[in-house]
């Protein structure tokens, strides 16, 4: 997820670019999107497991730090979810309550970023340097799910 023309907010797109041709597309779908809210739900329905890759600003972390989170880590925002926006946690909960085929496992790989307010197509240096580590984390996650063989076009996890 992210915005590829907003500097560090495009880091998700950059990571996904590295992963694009490494997996059998019958098993792993790689998508880059700037859509949000309910539209995100539309994209993930029908899959068993999803890894969401995005930028984050925690206010406390070091730029370039890569986190692994689950959807439960976002439950606080769901309860504070206002009518103002349907955020990811709310969208997932809605999908579950409506009996839609929401993925049973959702992992979020998030990179602490610096600049998401300047238009640009590249990431700032510290974020740029974090990309390989984030790619490895995603590949490791997929390898851990067992069936997915990395075709070895990049670093082995």
């Amino acid at each position, binding site marked *: 997820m992210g915005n590829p023309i907003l500097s560090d907010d495009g880091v998700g797109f950059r990571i996904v670019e590295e992963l694009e041709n490494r997996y059998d597309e019958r098993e792993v779908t790689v998508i880059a*999107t700037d859509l949000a809210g*309910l539209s995100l739900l539309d994209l993930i329905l029908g899959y068993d497991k999803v890894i969401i890759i995005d930028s984050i600003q925690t206010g406390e972390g070091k730029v370039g730090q890569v986190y692994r989170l689950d959807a439960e880590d976002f439950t606080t925002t769901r*309860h504070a979810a206002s009518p*103002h926006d349907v955020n990811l946690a709310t969208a997932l909960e809605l999908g579950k309550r409506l009996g839609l085929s929401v993925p049973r496992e959702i992992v979020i790989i998030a990179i602490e970023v610096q600049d998401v307010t300047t238009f640009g197509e590249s990431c700032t240096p510290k974020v740029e340097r974090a990309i390989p580590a984030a790619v490895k984390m995603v590949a490791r996650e997929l390898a851990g799910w067992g069936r997915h063989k990395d075709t070895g076009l990049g670093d082995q996890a």
Partner: protein
Amino acid sequence: MKRITIDPITRLEGHGKIELFLDDDGNVANAYLQIPELRGFEKFCEGRPVEELPRITPRICGVCPSAHHMASTKATDAVYHVNPPPAAKKLRELYYCAHMCHSHIAHFYALAAPDFVLGPTADPAERNILGVVARVGLEIGGEVIKHRAYAQEIQAVIGGKATHSVCGLPGGMSRAITEEERAVFEEKAKSMVEFAKFSLKLFDDVVLANKGYVDLITGDIYTMQSYYMGMVDANNKVNFYDGNIRVVDPEGKEVAKFKPADYLDYVAEHTEPWSYLKFPFLKKVGWKGFVEGKESGVYRVAPLARLNVADGMATPIAQEAYERMYQTLGGKPVHATLAMHWARLVELMYAAERLLELSQDKEVADPNVRTIPTATPDEGVGVVEAPRGTLFHHYQTDERGIVKKVNLIVATGNNHAAICMSIKKAAQGLIKAGQVVSEGLLNMVEMAFRAYDPCMACATHTLPGQMPLEVIIRDHQGNVLQTLSRNLS
């Protein structure tokens, strides 16, 4: 009252703020809406081939990318002085009506309905789409998701990708649709018409049948007298994709009707030291401050405005709904800000009916969807009615079509002054001296803001789809008394 200067640069942390300033007596003296600025969009576009802008500008907003895609495409038509073939225009309009359906459904059920179905002072943990579905039933929730998905699918087929449209080109579209695709659209459009009817009925049963809500809608704190702007077709009926721009005064009289290319003769932008976002106003009336009425150049856009400026809706069921709304609310124009939610459903009805009309028109599947430009590019303006209001894209290029200058007036930007005024009025009416300010009360202030379905993503080109918001109340010395936060984590 002490005058407090706000420094936006040091205060903003990447989310929006409503700041309410109380006077010595504890009444609301002023209200400010601030949104963070994103830097360098115009610069980012300069030096690029202009036909790339329909693929770049949708990135501004993850909520209404199709509106930018269409306005941008029309601007490139204008830059190249090229007229698309009829099938291309119909196809674009079909795509665009699907977008309106998608957007209005999402807004009504996820963002507006919670206040009406659960009540404006209900617990925030319930006052969201989950609460709505719990109250009105899972089946309805399923219908919401289904019809949003239909609209999204239509856009994906025409647009080229589910996640990002690439179909708009100067002079037409990148591909035509097949007869099979057209037939599928027709079936989806029929279902959409039924769902739009259902939504209007739901509004009837839940909102209009509840006297408390009707009083809320027609009450003074949510009423504002302003000019209105919207796009109309040759018969002065609402059209989202193409037409001229019409402006009416607070009494409903037409004061201007102009072609998109002439917008700078009618619209100017005012700046304030406390906001990055400018305040568009009507040039011929002039900027008189944040005041209501005929002497002030403040104008409003979006569903209520579009219905106020038009003489009616171009499709039958929507026309009925239009007439009913004005009859119920006491004639045209309607100044009740919360009536936007009703107007939005009337527009949903029109978008669905128009979607059906276009998908039943065999010409929409005609293979000729492109006129290759031959003129030298220079300058052009493209305008559409985005879900949230009139959207202007204005480009200047050199003789090779390389962008020199870009100016956008986005939907919510047009409403900026009005939003600030509506917030202030609601706050002044609800928060009075010596009163305990509850979360529910603050939510009612926020309702004034939300009725505009504001997309600050576009207004300052901010983060797509996410609009965290803080409401802060300060005493007369600027000390913070209370804060309410949404989505800040």
